[in-house]
């Protein structure tokens, strides 16, 4: 691999690139799904290719191909040079990269059990057992269980002398139970929604998920939701479970602290950000209870790695400290606009995509209260659990989220179950209304974060715990 990367870099330099980098990525993944007692899918994927990024006359060009050899290195680098020169025809200002010491090293995800060494029989056996437990509940119409494992091996080199190799291993699984009536559909998922919970780690992390012991409860709740009352339309105290807090952090803190968004790079597609650079260090984003870090070193995080795709070492940086907005996720190019060093957040989906500023692990730091005490200390409110729907505006201000299930809180106790719960708000007002974060902190994985054109899917992590918010509008219905 190193010879191909060096060849691409030499070709780019000889062709006039002031800077170039090259990545070779080999991705292997396995997807298994059991539905209604039958094996619905077993798929083994392999993807391999080379991507070269070249900076010529102050503009970027990127080219990629699934052929990886010294001949393709010349061709791909040549194409990147031509594209960079085309970019320079419409240049607002030349790209400047923040200084970076060239990294040389290797990173491998810590894990105990290589998920690719576990037999397909054993994986399907677990999913079939969990599926059977879901289907024992009479009201369940569709029972789905899925598992996905990944191994990403990549090498990165730059004309500045960086060369790093990484092996990232991820494991995830989950279940969904769907109950239907003539005019309603209700779903419960575990441990996370939209198919599965993903972390960096081995098969041991799937075994820790306790899928079997939770399946009867999940099935029962999905059926019970059909006869539950609609979430009332009111303004009240809301306690979100840790998974929904993770999604709230993702949408209303992770994305708006991406500096490329704040600088307009995504304005025509994903949008911009209400957090403009002039607000750094001064803007009250949330209450004093709100502390949020971007931490690419968090064990198990789906956004944990050794180096980003510009070769910048993984870092831990505050985004929000004691409620004040203090930092962005940055790249070398965008960091230079703020006279900073890169925060190491440039990540590409694979060899065929350019790196973009992506979330790493965006973690809301825990408080000291147990989630049980959080509920017990709430006289009146609604407890909501697990994301079902999400929408937020292009500045990341106005959001509306739905969860799978909710319960009324009365006198510190959970009482009536509600279906179709929703809540809506404006980001800083919402986080300023946060008066407590619980201590049930753990890493949650979001394996479906989309950004960029062509759209790149990314696995990002969120350390989160249950949290309480005051005066929240709930129960918006169409």
């Amino acid at each position, binding site marked *: 691999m190193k010879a191909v990367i060096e060849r691409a870099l030499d070709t780019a330099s000889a062709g006039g690139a002031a800077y170039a980098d090259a990545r070779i990525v080999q991705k292997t993944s396995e*997807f298994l*799904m059991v*539905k209604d007692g*039958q*094996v*619905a*899918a*077993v*798929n*083994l*994927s*392999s*993807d*391999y*290719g080379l991507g070269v990024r070249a900076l010529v006359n102050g*503009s970027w060009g*990127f*080219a*990629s191909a*699934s052929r990886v050899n010294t001949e393709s290195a010349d061709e791909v680098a040549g194409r*990147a040079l031509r*594209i*960079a020169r*085309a*970019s*320079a*025809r*419409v*240049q*607002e200002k030349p790209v400047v990269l923040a200084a970076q010491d060239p990294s040389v090293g290797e990173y491998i995800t810590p894990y105990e059990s290589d998920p690719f060494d576990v037999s*397909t029989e054993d994986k399907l056996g677990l999913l079939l057992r969990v599926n059977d437990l879901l289907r024992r509940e009479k009201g369940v119409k*569709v029972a789905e269980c899925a598992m996905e494992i990944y191994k990403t091996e990549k090498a990165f080199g730059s004309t500045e002398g960086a060369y790093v190799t990484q092996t990232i291993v991820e494991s995830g699984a989950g279940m969904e139970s769907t109950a*239907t009536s003539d005019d*309603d*559909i209700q779903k419960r998922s575990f441990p996370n929604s939209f198919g599965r919970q993903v972390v960096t780690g081995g098969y041991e992390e799937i075994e820790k998920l306790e899928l079997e012991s939770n399946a009867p409860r999940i099935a029962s709740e999905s059926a019970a939701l059909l006869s539950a009352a609609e979430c009332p339309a009111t303004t009240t105290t809301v306690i979100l479970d840790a998974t929904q807090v993770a999604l709230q952090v993702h949408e209303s803190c992770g994305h708006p602290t991406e500096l490329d968004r704040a600088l*307009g*790079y*995504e*304005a*025509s*597609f994903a949008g911009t950000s*209400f957090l403009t650079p002039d607000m750094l260090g001064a803007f009250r984003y949330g209450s004093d209870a709100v502390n949020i870090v971007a931490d690419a070193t968090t064990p198990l995080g789906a956004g944990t790695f050794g180096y980003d795709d510009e070769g910048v070492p993984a870092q831990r940086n505050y985004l929000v400290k004691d409620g004040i907005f203090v930092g962005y996720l940055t790249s070398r190019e965008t960091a230079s606009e703020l006279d900073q060093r890169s925060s190491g957040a440039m990540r590409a989906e694979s060899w065929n995509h350019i790196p973009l500023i992506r979330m790493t692990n965006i973690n809301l730091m825990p408080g000291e209260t147990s989630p049980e005490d959080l509920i017990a200390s709430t006289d009146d409110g609604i407890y909501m659990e697990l994301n*079902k*729907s*999400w*929408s937020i*505006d*292009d500045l990341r*201000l*106005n959001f*509306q989220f739905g969860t799978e299930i909710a319960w009324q809180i009365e006198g510190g106790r959970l009482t009536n179950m509600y279906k*179709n719960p*929703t809540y*809506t708000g*404006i980001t800083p007002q919402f986080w300023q209304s946060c008066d407590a974060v619980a201590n049930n902190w753990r890493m949650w994985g979001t394996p479906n974060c989309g950004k960029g*054109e*062509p759209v790149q899917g990314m696995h990002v992590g969120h350390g989160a715990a249950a949290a309480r918010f005051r005066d929240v509008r709930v129960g*918006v*219905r*169409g």
Partner: protein
Amino acid sequence: MTVLSETDAHQIARRALDFAGEADESEVVVSSADTGLTRFANNGIHQNVSEESVHVNLRLALGKRVGVADGNQVDSDSLRRLAERAASIARLQPENPEFAGLPSGGERRTAGGLCQSTLEFSPEDRADGAAKVVNAAQARGLTAFGAFSTGVRSVAVASTAGIEQYHEGTTANANAVLMNDDASGTGMALSSDVAEIDMESIGEAAAGKAERGMSPEDIEPGTYQVVLEEAAVAQMVEFLAFESFNGLFHEEGRSFTSASMGKAVMGENISIWDDGVDPSGIASPFDGEGVARERVDFIENGVLKAVVYDHQTASKYGAENTGHAWTAPNPYGPVAANLFMAPGEVASVEELVAGVERGVWVTTFHYTNLLEPMRVVLTGMTRHGTFMIENGKVTKPLRNLRFTQSVLDAFSAVEALTRDTKLTGDYLRVRAPAVLIREFQFTGGSQS
């Protein structure tokens, strides 16, 4: 730009099928793409990418045990390993008694959609296109953002059940957003022929909306008449395709269609169908199993008539396969991807606006998502041009609004549609008119 020819693609497919020779049945999909995309922001090109790729997806069955493996290397060793992986996966799993086998060979289906002008379009041409939008912005004191992509894709499907298909088509897609401090406007175009994309017009359309949107005001959330432009309508149709017209969801009781077949579910002026070979869309003549896509009329004059099926779903539930499978493995059921909504009689969006007593004009939606699948309740934001209409005239620009609205209710209250349609689509391709809807629920506002 070049992709695998029919001869080369089928030669790879045959080798893969040969390596899978021990299987009772096998199927291979060989796809290739050569694409380029130029993005611009703040009046300059900031991202500019090119990708050449090949993908091979092999499904094989040992009795009723099915394995799927895919990869992107096409040398003989790689194809042999692909077949071995698929076979080992199949061997290690229990039989699926519901596996219906592979679809047998049927009609070879071809379609147009390969445009020489798009094939020959270069990175320099895309840069020049971006420059036209930037020039339009700078001439008016605005800032330009957007993307311009061109590409060619091929797909070949072959199977031991007699399937043999090949299609090669081009796509060109452009969008521009022009902004000032407090407003934005957009223009867009999508076609298989890049010659049909006029970047100057796109830039002018975006500039016009941005200039008209300066100094936006708030309105109270509530129920308003609404004029939705084509891209906003297309998003609503996309959700119907994903959540409602899927034959698997229909059969499992997970769609409003389960209890409504043959009934009026929308207004009489609404007809929606899927057609993979209509030249005014982006052609996709066969599905991920190589089965020819049939035209499927979902809604005819407001009445629900049909949903789409793939081979597995059709076999399990005794329905006719309409040719709408994804590539295997496909546990989520069939999806219509080439959608059309019938036009009306109104000459222009402006004429729709003239018919509004008190309402809101919406250019596009942003970050739309599903809240309730049975009523197809969506929530999202308006974007890139939202205006107040009073007594048939635009009276002021508005800040973006959040809507929370059932698509079924909205399409039951359409008062008028334009006679011209536009091809757009975030994930699927949708050709739709602009519409005037009698009642539409806005549930919140924003500062953007």
